[in-house]
């Protein structure tokens, strides 16, 4: 899958390493998760309602099209969360766990 976003400037930032779906990737400090992902691949996730792939839409936290999850199940908007060293992201919705079980 080819990259969707193209970097035009600000390429001189330090590198940050994180995991995406179990694979290590490198991003630049200050990248949003969306930019870290879409400068490598063409989509963020699978739509739940059709065969289409989704790659975000509004970039301002309004459309919620760009959800990804941490390994522990916390949901993040890829457009408004920055990469951090050691972050472990999954792009498939984890099994729904009712948080007040028991």
């Amino acid at each position: 899958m080819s990259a969707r976003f193209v970097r035009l400037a600000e390429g001189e930032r330090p590198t940050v390493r994180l995991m995406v779906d179990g694979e290590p990737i490198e991003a630049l400090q200050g990248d949003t998760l969306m930019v870290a992902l879409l400068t490598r691949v063409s989509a963020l996730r699978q739509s739940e309602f059709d065969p289409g792939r989704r790659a975000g839409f509004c970039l301002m936290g309004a459309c919620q099209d760009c959800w990804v999850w941490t390994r522990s199940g916390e949901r993040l908007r890829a457009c408004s969360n920055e990469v951090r060293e050691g972050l472990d992201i999954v792009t498939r919705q984890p099994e729904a766990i009712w948080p007040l079980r028991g």
Partner: protein
Amino acid sequence: MATARLKNLQKDALRVVIVGAGPAGTRCAETLVAAGIRPILLDENRRDGGQIYRRQPEGFTRDYATLYGSEAEKARALHQSFDRLRERIDYRPDTLVWSLTPGQLCCVSQGKHTTVDYDALILCTGATDRLMPIEGWQLAGTYSLGGAQIALKAQAVSIGRRVVFLGSGPLLYLVASQYLKAGATVAAVLDTSPLRKRIAALPKLLARPGLLFTGMKLLAQLYLARIPVHLGVEPQQVLGDAASGVSAVRVRTSHGDNLQFDCDALALGYHLRPETQLADLAGCRMRFQEVSQQWVLDTDGEGRTSVRGVYAAGDGARIRGADAAEHAGRLVALALLQDLQQPVHGEALALQRRVLAVMDEFSHGLCQAFPWPAAQAKALADEAIVCRCEMITAGELRSVVREKGACEVNRAKAFSRVGMGRCQGRYCSQAGAEVIAAAAGVAVERVGRQRGQAPVKPLSMLTEELKQAEEVAP
């Protein structure tokens, strides 16, 4: 939150809460600080500036001219004002206000729920892109116009290798020219507004000749760079496939020719719509604004809503742009001070009102020059997606109007789920209302507007409290 109660409070004990740290929120805070009030400023973003003057993350090095172009000095001035205010206000970034009850806001900040009490609330919640669907807009690689701008401004990326800009409004030309200047490839700029609308709007646009000139300069830059620019187009389809996303955009020109532009990204937008959900939850009255053909907050000339103690300024009240937002922010602060029986110079109030009257005139001119393309909703193919969150088609929405008689948007939403998905109607409800109105054969203001619902944005179930509850559970 009666004004009567406000009057009885000491200035020090008064809890004034501003929501949003864009141009309106910042100027409002500044005016209140000057009067000796220390407001709480809640901001969903991580840094001040709002969307238009969004600050790039730490470690980015582009200068103001590169980032904000013709608006560089305004951006710098606003940021500097905020920096000076920083210690004199209670600024809480990364804080989403997701609901409210009279006197109290429900917030979530970094996974933690908090409440914030208020005596006076000033909503400076800004705007999002106003969208009209086009067949195929659900394909990956279609972004809102504002989103395309944020990609460039906040992250120094282009949304694609070849980008088509489609829609209408000043932002269309601004973002396209910013992409061009930053070295991105602009495949075409396609405006649904015909030239005659702009000519007809000239008298109103001349209210702000400087801005009109800036707009013409942007257009000239695009022509000089030999970017195909077409006015008065009818959008036809976004082409592509489910796996790889957008591959081309097809439009019909004003001469009736079909044109296709190959691209891997589309920036789509028709001006802006106000974020009114919190005002709606507070019970503030709305009104249908003829000139923009959308529902806006019904405020008095100074920013008081119909609910006492609740105020609004900037694009979150009605769309007038960033310059007007700065003035409206100052004015609403003066209005609040007046309600608190604080000394306010009549001349200061009058000055802001005079400036805003000019900006009103200009914003009406923009609505006239770049009209909302309501007719497109009527012409939308039955197979076209209206709700891109849950993939609901125009045909499905029309069928609930025809078969169930759901001629009101909230009722049609209940049957069709248009407006119920992840974006909570931000990107489909206006077009949805047009589809319903056309199917029902009534004017769009007759089908109502989608009610705000709490939470105004989806919340994660895994907040701190719930995590703790889980830990102590057997």
